[in-house]
């Protein structure tokens, strides 16, 4: 996973440098005009990817040695006069990964820095973080939800049809159809929501509702309820990058709406395509292995 991200960083750094556009967001929007499709809409077609640590934790976070840590005993004594104080060790389940399994630091993508949880929800988020290995739906290859699908460490493709925009994500083959035409309401809650889009100048604005309460926002336990509404803004900033904003509203979990913001980078490799990350078969042993009597590796009884 880390090798993946590093490989992409190289490409994107070159792309952004080439564009002479080393700004994160904001000021370029007024100046840059996106190319147009044949029917006159801003052209966002292409393969895009986030290059940040938002999927580890939306908030600013220091580096740490593993996604799941064993809680350490509290410190005591005078620093420097006693034996080195207890440290948080990687959970044995992730320890063999060593430096590969560490979490890189990040400045955070939440505008204003804090996620305005209601008190009960802040406690649940902390509990989710402690139980990450058991609870994160990403581990089970479940559909990632919105906005998490955008900043998973996998590319996604925007495909602009004449009245539907498909957003095809590499992770788990998840897909959203953004209805640019008028459609009825969603018949039921869903993992990826029900998305309606419109153009605001060069910005694609997508309002998504009808989520279930199963998806998370990151690997740090950030979560929502079935009252979630996400308003996303995709604003082109150069041929090679756009600004992505997602405003989260969920009165059951948060005290007010809050927003994340990050650049997304175009994957500029020639003939770049989304590849399969069909992870269902990667997690079957984890999810169902204990129910079998035949070892899937040998076809025999163990």
């Amino acid at each position, binding site marked *: 996973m880390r090798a993946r991200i590093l490989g992409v960083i190289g490409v994107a750094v070159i792309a952004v440098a080439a564009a002479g556009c080393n700004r994160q967001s904001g000021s370029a929007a007024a100046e840059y005009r996106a190319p147009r*499709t044949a029917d006159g809409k801003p052209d966002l077609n292409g393969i895009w990817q986030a290059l940040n640590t938002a999927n580890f934790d939306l908030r600013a976070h220091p580096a740490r040695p593993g996604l799941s840590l064993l809680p350490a005993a509290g410190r005591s004594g005078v620093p420097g006069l006693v034996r080195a104080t207890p440290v948080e060790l990687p959970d044995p389940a992730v320890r063999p990964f060593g430096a590969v399994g560490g979490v890189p630091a990040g400045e955070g993508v939440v505008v204003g820095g804090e996620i305005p949880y209601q008190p009960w929800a802040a406690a649940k988020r902390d509990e989710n973080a402690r139980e990450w290995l058991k609870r994160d739906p990403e581990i089970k290859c479940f559909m990632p939800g919105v906005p998490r699908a955008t900043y998973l460490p996998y590319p996604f493709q925007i495909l602009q049809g004449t009245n539907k925009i498909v957003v095809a994500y590499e992770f788990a083959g998840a897909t959203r159809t953004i209805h640019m035409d008028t459609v009825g309401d969603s018949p039921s809650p869903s993992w990826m929501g029900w998305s309606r889009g419109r153009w605001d100048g060069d910005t694609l604005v997508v309002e998504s509702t009808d989520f279930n309460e199963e998806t998370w926002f990151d690997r740090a336990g950030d979560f929502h309820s079935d009252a979630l509404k996400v308003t996303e803004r995709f604003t082109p900033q150069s041929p090679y990058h756009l600004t992505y904003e997602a405003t989260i509203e969920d009165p059951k979990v948060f005290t007010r709406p809050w927003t994340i913001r990050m650049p997304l980078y175009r994957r500029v490799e020639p003939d770049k395509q989304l590849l399969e990350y069909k992870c269902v078969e990667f997690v079957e042993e984890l999810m169902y292995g204990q129910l079998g009597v035949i070892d899937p590796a040998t076809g025999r009884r163990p």
Partner: protein
Amino acid sequence: MKNRHLLAVAAVAAAVAAAVSAAAQQPAAGGWVQPKTPWGDPDLQGVWRYEASIPLERPAQFQGRAALTDDEVAQRQKVEDDQEASRLAGAEGKAVGRGNLDQSPIRGNEYNSFWQDHGRPRQVYKQTSLVIDPADGRIPYTPDAKKAEARAQARYGAGPYESFLDPDTGERCLTDGVTALMWQGPNGGHNRIVQSPGYVTVLHEEYLDRRVIPVDGRQPHGVRQWFGNAVGTWEGNTLVVTTTNFIDRTNYEWASIFMRPSETLRISERYTRTGASTMDYRITVEDPTTFERAWTAQIPITRLPDDTLIYEYACHEGNYAMTNLLAGGRTDAAKRGR
């Protein structure tokens, strides 16, 4: 980026060519003219579904002939009309809910019947089989593949279920494969086609199967995948898609083995709209691992009304059936003293 610019030039050229040729275009029967996208490609967009019930392989009773007689077509139409009438009258439910498995007319398929939606009447066509080549309308399995298919059929809905590898790929929420993607009808077989410059995307409702097919002259990337590497071209108004570089999944259980990918599988498809709501879809399947020779199926596809939507098929996320199948397998084995 160079490719993008070339694409843009090509798109403009195509649009001009389309505008020039539009006037000279021959309308199909009924005055229908193939619509074009704003960038000049034939427009195949919409939700499409196979709505007939033509056997894949020709049944023995039709040996030697490829088409039904007019009388046979009329009889089938009457059956469909009667079924539609009884569906509308609410009588359909009486056919299900038998007291035990032996009484069930759909033995082994009770689970699927729960999901199946016959909400629109089936279309009646003259074809006696979807397979039109070889001439006998039968899939030319190799002798080993015939045995494998017989084994797959015997296992389907019957087990055993001793590990998660025992259910078929569909029950595992993986896929039923590319081969049957456009025409697996009743069980969520809706396909939305969305086009963007240089791409045709097919969203298949069941299993959330998705194909993003480049139609821009590129070569296959060579990374083996469940859905292989698809590349498309336009031949007039026909979308021609060739798919190679499949990953080998012949060791998995498939409900029917003609759908399984292997490294030697090669699929060629032709999508040709023949009217506002009709498409002639043809698929040629070659794979020496499974078939003696290439075979071709011709499949009539229907375009559903413009407001048709497809929905999220969260299969893996809610796959309680896998847990229940395996737990049931354990209970069953315990009862039999194994």
